[in-house]
């Protein structure tokens, strides 16, 4: 069965109606990967044995004629920061180059229980730290739409695999924009759920108060379907919420008429590329024509989001990454004679430049004499940013912005300037800090045929509304 453009519904019903087997689907995807991935670089590890075993289980079910679970036979890829039992998981880092997790991440386990077939593990920036996937310790990912350009990051492999039809859907993680920005750069759908909506158990931690797991897909309905599978309370993550999980896919049919959509001037200011602006403004016009009420709003502290983010995220990372010490798993430096030397050399040799930069920044911000000036200050401004959204959501049901100020940039273009790279996340980090949900959907192309993404932000646990707006826009064509 041809994997090109294949959606979850199409894959599942083809198997249910016995027009294809799960084995065919898996085989076709592996063939596509064998042909295409050498030039794209999306996959780091393939899990063929596990995939074929799972496909066999689905085909047995289908032959019996039993009703199939929601993701039956759907070939998926998993970002390499999500633990997969028995399948190498590196987080894009040399320090975990030979790590074989002894357990599955809850989101992955739920995907498989719903019938999904894990094809393999997807490339990403080391420990999800980056906006271009160039910080992977293994290899960069090339944007399938233009191989000289980055796919975005940090979930670059997850976005590229869906864009190149090397998976029907994938999972990624978002800490500062790492789902939405690559979705925008590669022209696919990327959904960041509300903090607490999806369990983080088995996600290799970067910044624990920000990290989310969410899907990439070819259309909005598929994102809704995957979210329905992975969302919900998990006793293994005390920050996962009890809030009931609606039937997201059914909610889509409610349409977008009558919804109030906010447009914040702060997201259309200096630094926004002209073509991106024109596309997003045209998309807002289309939403108006679909019956949405467009409401001008203001999020006055937005310009402080990047400084707040790069303190909070690096502080939390500096603490989370202490566990990589060469004792229990991963890489250990060979030449150390004392314990302290072993820790230092292991971390020196095992971590890449960006990870070390963030550990240093976070450690500095927490060190004696700087805690109040940096960490406490950033936490206070985080409150202000969150209040901005609380105020805005009194007036509107969703907020529409560009996902990224530009379309995909060239490989190497920003890799020498960390600050310029950080500013690529300017429209996405606010939602991570406030804990709200957001989705990026394609909304046009530049003259050079590069995808442009529109971001739709929603209230805590109100994924249904942003999915409805996104679906209505997508269906209007």
């Amino acid at each position: 069965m041809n994997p090109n453009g294949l959606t979850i519904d199409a894959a599942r019903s083809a198997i249910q109606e016995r027009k294809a087997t799960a084995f065919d689907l898996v085989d076709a995807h592996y063939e596509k990967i064998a042909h295409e991935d050498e030039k794209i670089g999306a996959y780091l590890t393939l899990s063929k044995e596990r995939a074929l075993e799972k496909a066999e289980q689905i085909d047995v079910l289908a032959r019996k004629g039993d009703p199939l679970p929601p993701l039956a036979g759907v070939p998926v890829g998993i970002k390499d920061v999500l633990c997969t039992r028995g399948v190498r998981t590196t987080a894009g880092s040399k320090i975990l180059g030979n790590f074989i997790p002894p357990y599955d991440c809850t989101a992955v386990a739920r995907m498989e229980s719903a019938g999904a077939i894990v094809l393999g593990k997807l490339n990403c920036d080391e420990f999800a730290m980056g906006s271009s996937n160039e910080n992977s310790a293994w290899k960069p990912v090339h944007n399938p739409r233009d191989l000289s350009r980055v796919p975005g990051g940090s979930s670059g492999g997850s976005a590229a695999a869906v864009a190149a039809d090397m998976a029907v859907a994938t999972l990624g993680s978002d800490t500062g924009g790492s789902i939405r920005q690559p979705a925008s750069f590669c022209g696919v759908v990327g959904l960041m759920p509300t903090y607490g909506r999806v369990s983080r158990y088995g996600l290799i931690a970067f910044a624990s108060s920000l990290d989310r797991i969410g899907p990439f897909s070819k259309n909005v309905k598929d994102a809704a379907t995957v979210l329905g599978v992975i969302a919900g309370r998990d006793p293994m993550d005390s920050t996962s919420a009890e809030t009931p999980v609606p039937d997201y896919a059914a909610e889509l049919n409610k349409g977008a008429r009558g919804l109030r959509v906010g447009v914040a001037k702060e997201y259309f200011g200096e630094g926004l590329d002209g073509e991106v602006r024109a596309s997003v403004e045209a998309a807002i016009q289309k939403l108006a024509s679909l019956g949405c009420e467009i409401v001008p709003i203001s999020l006055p502290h937005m310009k402080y989001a990047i400084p707040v983010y790069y303190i909070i995220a690096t502080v939390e990372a500096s603490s989370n990454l202490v566990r990589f010490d060469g004792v229990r798993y991963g890489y250990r430096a060979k030449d150390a004679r004392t314990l302290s030397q072993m820790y230092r050399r292991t971390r020196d040799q095992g971590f890449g430049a960006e990870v070390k930069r963030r550990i240093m920044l976070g450690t500095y911000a927490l060190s004696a004499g700087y805690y109040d000036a940096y960490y406490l200050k950033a936490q206070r401004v985080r409150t202000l940013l969150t209040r901005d959204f609380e105020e805005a959501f009194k007036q509107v049901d969703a907020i529409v912005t560009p996902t990224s100020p530009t379309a995909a940039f060239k490989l190497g273009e920003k890799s020498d300037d960390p600050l310029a790279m950080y500013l690529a996340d300017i429209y996405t980090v606010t939602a991570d800090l406030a804990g709200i949900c957001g989705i990026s959907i394609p909304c046009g192309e530049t003259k050079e045929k590069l995808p442009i993404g529109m971001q739709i932000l929603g209230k805590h646990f109100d994924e249904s509304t942003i999915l409805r707006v996104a679906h209505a826009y997508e269906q209007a064509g």
Partner: protein
Amino acid sequence: MKVTEKDVSYVADLANLELTEDERTRMVRDLNSILGHIDNLNELDTANVPPMAQVSELYGVDRSKTGCERFMYASREDVIEGLRKCLPHDEALANAPSSDGTYFKVPKVIER
């Protein structure tokens, strides 16, 4: 320049990193550039703004309670076997760079 070579050495020490000469030079440059941008936060008067550590504070919390009582929503009964079974010894050691089958092994800590 806010961050000096000396600061970088001190912080690298705290973070258990060694860093080469080149890395230290570059770190001084990068940290100064990033912290320069972060200093924009000082435009804001936040004296009366409470700090926010967790999004979970926004939901689930019983605001009528104080202290740990506020976070009871996230707690559960302790269970001896855990929610997942404990890892068997060999699986727990399987990823270790060095072990003797019972313990993780590390270089000598105390010189005699």
